[in-house]
């Protein structure tokens, strides 16, 4: 129990810090909205084109906007050497990682839930017709992005060019999750139900989440000690 309590303490601490400064949240939301707006103006897609690009557009926006949040995750600990104080405290690297991942998950989810209605308005799409399955995909894919992103945030925290390195390292690893999320989101936002073909992508997404969550919980301890 204390493992989860410690993880929740870290998550609450991160969320409280972020909600007071809104550094990552504001830039991430602004970035997502601007891209959705500009893309809509630039291409004025027809309904058929929207059906084809919806998944790709949304998840590329979420992935890029997410990088802004993920970059801040461990970088937040650099000021005042807070990371040393955390690593010296009696909590496992896994609890620290899980806490950070939970905070990032909530923040990224907030960006997505603000972006989705904006997408609906700009592209004239009623995206709520398959709300349940769509939210399931959003939750699974967001967790996948968060887990991988948080791990690489810890890995790149001491690099001088971490803002550049994090996306370069994270996106190739995220490809399976992004691909599955794109394949699932496009039909769901246009109101198509989950069929057998889509369930295969859903399984891939679930497997990605399970494998990378387990892998990072095991690996993260070695990253934290110099």
């Amino acid at each position, binding site marked *: 129990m204390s493992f989860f309590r410690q993880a929740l303490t870290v998550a609450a601490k991160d969320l409280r810090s972020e909600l007071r400064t809104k550094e990552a949240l504001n830039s991430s939301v602004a970035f997502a909205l601007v891209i959705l707006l500009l893309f809509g103006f630039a291409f004025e897609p027809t309904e058929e084109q929207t059906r084809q690009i919806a998944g790709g557009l949304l998840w590329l926006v979420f992935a890029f906007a997410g990088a802004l949040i993920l970059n801040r995750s461990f970088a937040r600990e650099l000021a005042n050497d807070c990371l040393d104080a955390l690593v010296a*405290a009696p909590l496992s690297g896994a609890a620290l990682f899980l806490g950070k991942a939970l905070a990032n998950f909530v923040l990224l989810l907030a960006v997505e839930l603000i972006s989705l209605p904006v997408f609906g308005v700009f592209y004239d799409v009623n995206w709520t017709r398959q709300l349940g399955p769509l939210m399931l995909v959003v939750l699974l894919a967001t967790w996948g992005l968060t887990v991988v992103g948080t791990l690489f945030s810890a890995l790149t925290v001491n690099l001088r060019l971490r803002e550049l390195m994090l996306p370069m390292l994270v996106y190739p690893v995220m490809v399976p999750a992004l691909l599955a999320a794109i394949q699932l989101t496009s039909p769901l936002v246009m109101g198509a139900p989950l069929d057998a073909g889509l369930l295969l992508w859903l399984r891939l997404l679930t497997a990605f989440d399970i494998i990378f969550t387990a892998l990072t919980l095991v690996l993260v301890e070695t990253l934290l000690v110099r």
Partner: protein
Amino acid sequence: MKAVEAAGIWKFYGDFPALREVSFGVQAGSCLALLGRNGAGKTTLWSILAGLSRPGRGLARILGGDPRDQRTRARVGVLGHGVGVYDELSALENLEVFGRLYRLPGARRRALAWLERTGLERVRDARVREFSRGMRQRLALARAFLHEPALLLLDEPFTSLDDRAVALLQSLVREAITAGRTVVLSTHQLPEALELATHVALLVRGRLAYAGKRDSEMLRDPGWLYRQYGEA
């Protein structure tokens, strides 16, 4: 019983050996002043003992356990160069967070008691961002002492402290020693450290040049140790 044991510790940064076969022990209940000029390897050794860094070669043990063991870390108070508190949280919130991470019963009560002890109770709800360097350092002391650790590892704790805060730190360390706790104090501020220390270790360019009891000669002439071991 030894509270700290270092056996043949080497640490390399690239090819550069920051520590060269450092071996020493600290008896439980004593206060060791870990001295040395800038770049002598004090912080490197401190970070290995604090479990923040692994030795390249050799073995470090604190309170009879591995420095990375969670049960061991629960009994160690660490204060490094950075104050290790969050600017966006209040003083009270900071101590509550660490109280919970150290699984302390009554974390809030303890946090309030330590804020009072360090003279920060009036600003308990103010964000640390608004604090002076000295106030941050006092909050960091409260964080390090919050869980009443059996071993305190303090790296340059006198930095940026005014007279009042130095007196507070000295009284906290004296109380800790009286209560049977062990203190390792890494610093290059000799008079303050020697006043508190029962034992002294001197690092010279990554090697342990001296380890032994602090004697009265060192108190009379704090620079004596450096001159004696070629660091004048």
